[in-house]
């Protein structure tokens, strides 16, 4: 297998990476999932009435995690006392329409569509949105520097919470 480089990486290789990520989330392999992120990574979910590229430093989001808070989010979700996710919900992330939107010398800009189902206690909720990723290659591996999930919804109705990772 040839070494991954930003200049030559294909959409298919990016897709494989994103599908693996989705699988880890759906199987609650959250510690493994965390290893897909760079040490300076961020994970963002803006509110549904702000610009998709808004900054969490100046607008209200649903989620704006730096690496430390992302680790804490994983740690929290794996505890019995994370009541919103106890017993754990069943989830399914469907990732589609993956496209490499841009390449720089340091990063890939990747867009995708995502549909996530969360089922708990007989109720199934749907999160509809798009992804924007900033990906880097480190030591021959793809890693996530930023994951942003932009919800195509008018608020979280009837979801009520983003207790899982989108």
């Amino acid at each position, binding site marked *: 297998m040839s070494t991954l480089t930003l200049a030559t990486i294909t959409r298919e290789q990016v897709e494989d990476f994103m599908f693996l990520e989705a699988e880890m989330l759906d199987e609650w392999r959250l510690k493994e999932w965390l290893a897909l992120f760079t040490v300076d990574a961020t994970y963002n*979910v*803006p*509110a*549904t*009435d*702000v610009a998709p590229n*808004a900054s*969490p*430093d*100046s*607008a*209200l*989001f*649903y*989620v*704006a995690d730096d690496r*430390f*808070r992302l680790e*804490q*989010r994983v*740690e*929290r979700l794996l*505890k019995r*006392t*994370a*009541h*919103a*996710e106890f017993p754990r919900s069943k989830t399914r992330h469907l990732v589609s329409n993956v496209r490499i939107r841009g390449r720089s010398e340091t990063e890939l800009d990747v867009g995708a569509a995502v549909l996530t189902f969360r089922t708990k*206690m007989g*109720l199934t909720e749907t999160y509809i949105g798009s992804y924007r990723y900033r990906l880097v290659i480190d030591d021959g591996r793809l890693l996530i520097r930023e994951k942003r999930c932009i919800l195509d919804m*008018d*608020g*979280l*109705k*009837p*979801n*009520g*919470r*983003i*207790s899982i990772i989108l």
Partner: protein
Amino acid sequence: MNAPADSKPIPLSELPVVWTDKERHRFKVARRSFVDPEILKTEYETIFNKCWLYIGHESELIKPGDFVTRIVAKRSILFTRDAGGTINAFFNACPHRGAQVCRERRGNAKSFQCFYHGWVFGSDGKLKSQPGSDCYPDDFNADGQANLVAVPRIDSYRGFWFICFDAGVQSLPDYLAGAKEWIDIVADQSETMMTLVGGTQEYQIRANWKLLTENSIDGYHAINTHATYVDYLKNSQGSMSPVPFDGTGYDLGNGHAVIEYRAPWGRPVAQWIPLWGDEGKVELDKVHARLVERFGKERADRIAFSNRNMFIFPNLVINDIMAITVRTYYPTAPDAMNVFGWALAPNEESAWARKYRLSNFLEFLGPGGFATPDDVEALEQCQRGFESMLEAPWSDISKGMKKERVNYDDELQMRAFWTQWQAVTGATAAPRNGDR
């Protein structure tokens, strides 16, 4: 329940929803109030159609022509600042045939055109033009009947705007009663104007709206429900100051209530935590010093170091905690509500403070935070528990009744809400004969 042992028990249909025994320090709420559609109907008639309701904040309407549309007690309301600078609230329904005249959430406009037949209204609600006006008499709108219908009452207090659908309601200052001085403590955090930061957290909870009232001013649940948030604070190097949780609750009259307490988290106005470093220390010392200049040390310390979870009857929450959230919510069914949450901040605060404020907000608050999702779960689990209402008909809100001075984690503030709720609705613990 309150009957002597040798006599027949009083039927639930003759007991109020809110049942108290002051001598024995008992305060019970009938779970019927959370599940019965008849109660919801009564709540709309006696509460949402009669009380002052929060519509928005002055910072949302800065320039003439600024507008916001918002659902308030099921009605779509158009909230505008008109060309003359006056703030208005109109029913967002065309006087012609009823279509919603404005279909955008917010913006700035000189006029609003109903797309159905093309009637045009100014931001002051006045009809400006109508296609085919030659088919109407000259005096068609002489009495204003073709203007947008204004909400009967609108008024503000310290930047918070309220409306009421009942023209005969008491004045807003009278209605707010003891809550005014507590709103002052929030409003005084800015020398220019408090402002809503862009972005709305909007979500639905599958639970009765009154459960969120209880939860928003409940100091008792934190240790259990929010165990993982407290773990998070402990794990974050420097996220806590050595301040123990301590404080008390107050009944502010008319169903309003507050808890005020010290807590170890950082506050952008202005409790420093080591995480914020020297830059933060300099910044927060400056903020505190200015508060001392403006209000003296005692009040400055109270503004800066105390937290407040404030409830304005029937459905406004202003929580001045690790950030400030303004929250309002409406029932759409006995077991469902829509919630709107915003972040409030001093307009003049630095980019540094704004960043940490929003970061603080998201740590705890909102559907993606480390705490609110567990509240949502708790409320939805209560609602499920209420399915056993016929056999398990009462909830208990007695904590702290026997004490002279209640603690912030007692339940006095919830009793204040429920006592007013009972006075206004007159509802009973089970339907009266003929109710259905």
